[in-house]
């Protein structure tokens, strides 16, 4: 490491150390004064559109990905826009259903739509995604019915979809566990020879999702070690939404995640996670490399959690409204729409139709959630093992006999 590198890190620390003190008298706060926002004007961050969706000039940082953006068709752009609008609407329904008592909990993705849709649309059918528990946007892109996401938050199951149907693993709640699963799956892809053949229908990769807090976990760091030494076809997609519940970035790391990748032996890329085009292009490039046998990449998608950690959280305890206001101006949907209008990718009817479709999807999933039946009680004992297990079977019988006893008493009374 050169002296200038050291100086650079020191400079980063210095800025992060200037912790943001919320105050009711404050007006909007310049980004540079906000805790953890050291990447806002980072020249290493890949961006393609500004806050209004105007195409930014191609520069040294985004040049490697520019062709991907330029190759996008109007249909590609419309697909991404529709995804952004629908997943935000699905997420809002999840929040509302929790507030109305239909769900026990909802972790909102509000603000992270571009990062998730960009990553999700870069995946091919044969790729596999390993989510945390906030990846509703990726789930949508993989074709998972949003209603099946509700099951675990309603308490009727721990994961209501067959992950092999859409190559989208079950949500993983223990932070970081899934990073290792992704690497092992990628090791399996490599062992199967489904990497580096040049056949676009065959070569596969894995994408592992976590957040800024997740990068502190041992499993995350072990996953990077295993991926590096096995050259597994894995893309680590870190959504740095700035907040691990109440803890900002400077409680998690001194060196930002994208810079840490190099120390493990593979590239790290910082992307504006509120820029759908940049998120898509960077994810596509990394997945292409992984599938072709060029090894893992870590993508840090720099974004913001607009809502609370979950419906149980109260962010007013630890962050300011002013900070949230700043990020409203970087809204992914606004940026995508501006870009599409600038390029003539869609007419007003398209945007109206997407809004109407969002209303329909919302109504459908709301109704399906409200009508989701409670599970039949004896199924509590199902699927504990693949083969009969005497203790489970005995307890199932005890349980049934116990309940049958009440029925008999009722009958005699």
């Amino acid at each position, binding site marked *: 490491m050169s002296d200038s590198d050291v100086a650079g890190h020191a400079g980063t620390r210095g800025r992060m150390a200037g912790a943001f003190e919320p105050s009711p008298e404050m007006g909007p706060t310049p980004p540079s004064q906000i805790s953890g926002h050291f990447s806002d004007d980072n020249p290493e961050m890949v961006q393609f559109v500004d806050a209004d969706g105007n195409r930014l000039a191609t520069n040294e940082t985004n040049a490697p990905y520019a062709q991907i953006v330029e190759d996008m068709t109007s249909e590609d752009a419309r697909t991404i826009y529709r995804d952004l609008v629908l997943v935000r609407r699905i997420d809002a329904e999840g929040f509302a259903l929790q507030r109305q008592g239909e769900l026990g909990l909802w972790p909102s993705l509000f603000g992270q739509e571009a990062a998730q849709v960009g990553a999700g649309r870069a995946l091919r059918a044969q790729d596999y995604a390993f989510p945390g528990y906030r990846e509703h946007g990726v789930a949508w892109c993989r074709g998972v019915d949003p209603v099946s996401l509700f099951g675990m938050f309603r308490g009727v*199951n*721990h*994961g*209501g979809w*067959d*992950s*092999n149907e859409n190559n989208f*693993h*079950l949500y*993983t709640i*223990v932070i970081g*566990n899934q*990073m*290792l*699963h*992704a*690497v*092992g*799956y*990628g*090791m*399996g*892809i490599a*062992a*199967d020879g489904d990497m580096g053949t040049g056949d676009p229908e065959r070569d596969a990769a894995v994408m592992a999702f976590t957040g800024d807090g997740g990068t502190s976990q*041992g*499993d995350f760091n*072990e*996953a990077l*070690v*295993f991926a590096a*030494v096995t050259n597994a076809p894995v893309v680590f997609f870190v959504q740095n939404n700035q907040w691990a519940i109440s803890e900002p970035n400077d409680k998690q790391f001194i060196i930002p995640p994208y810079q840490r990748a190099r120390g493990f032996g593979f590239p790290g890329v910082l992307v504006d996670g509120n820029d759908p085009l940049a998120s898509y292009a960077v994810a596509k490039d990394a997945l292409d490399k992984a599938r072709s046998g060029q090894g893992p990449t870590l993508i840090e998608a720099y974004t913001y959690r607009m809502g609370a950690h979950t419906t149980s959280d109260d962010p007013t305890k630890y962050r300011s409204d002013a900070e949230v206001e700043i990020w409203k101006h970087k809204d992914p949907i606004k940026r995508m729409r501006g870009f599409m209008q600038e390029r003539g990718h869609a007419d007003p009817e398209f945007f109206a139709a997407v809004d109407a479709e969002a209303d329909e999807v919302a109504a459908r999933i709301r109704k399906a959630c409200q009508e989701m039946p409670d599970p039949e009680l004896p199924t509590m004992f*199902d*699927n*504990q*093992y*693949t*083969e009969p*297990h*005497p*203790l*489970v079977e005995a307890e199932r019988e005890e349980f049934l006999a116990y309940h049958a006893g009440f029925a008999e008493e009722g009958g005699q009374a």
Partner: protein
Amino acid sequence: MSGTRLSLAKGLNAGLRKAMDKDPKVVLMGEDVGKLGGVFRITEGLQKDFGDHRVIDTPLAESGIVGTAVGLALRGYRPVVEIQFDGFVYPAFDQIVSQVAKMHARSLGHLKMPMVIRIPCGGGIGAVEHHSESNEAYFAHTAGLRVVSCSNAADAYWMIQQAIETDDPVVFFEPKRRYHERGETEIDEGGSPDLGLYDARVAKEGSDLTLLCYGPMVKTCLQAAAAAQEEGRNLEVIDLRSLSPLDLPTITSSVKKTGRAVIVHEAQTFVSLGAEIAARVQEECFYHLEAPVLRVGGYNIPYPPSRFEEEYLPTLDRVLDAVDRSFAH
């Protein structure tokens, strides 16, 4: 190769080899399992014969080993993971308890975890700290796992193959102090196992008292039974083999016959397999019992420095002392 006498270590090696021959999806993973053959040489020669894609020397990180094995299992492989020593499994405990054990149920049966986690266990080899533990109760307590322990070469040979064949995750405890003892059981490699993986074995029939044991303590209990025979007491010895599930029919029919039970294991007695078995036996055999169910195990302290271990671990004399106490009732 009928009628070979192998050590327990060689029995495991032969069993792993046979499983790998039978199913190309079986992969071995762990620290030093390749060229070295593992620190106990259980995987000796296997990387040479099957290649480094099937016998994988992993980074030195136990959570990473088990966590990537989960991913391989999801991809259709049948990973057999070696944890180098009992006391090193704890970094992987989160993956085992939170993911391996729960995956089948939380996926509503869509996903399977056909994984074997091999753990050399127990003391008696004069090792340094963290190399002599008996932590089977943590895993037996965890629903979703199956936990077994072999005590001799023939069982090692068959049980490791049976464990690999099952679609449930199996934690496989191997009594490290018995690894390299001269084999006493003949293995007919062309034959088939005489018991299911979850069946207990009546290792010695008897009528007066039931010794319940597993893993390294089976040999100790058989020796205790031989010594008791000289005093005119005919003890039955049951090798549990499976710790989760327990083969309760075999256990309870023996205790109903003898009226007395002593449970012997190296692990600490507090909240142990012995505690669970004692509870089950008193529930099922209450009117047959002539004496309280007794336990002989490690004292309820962390495993001591090895100069203490001869006194810490259950010995033939401590087993016989418990037998005497049972008969005093």
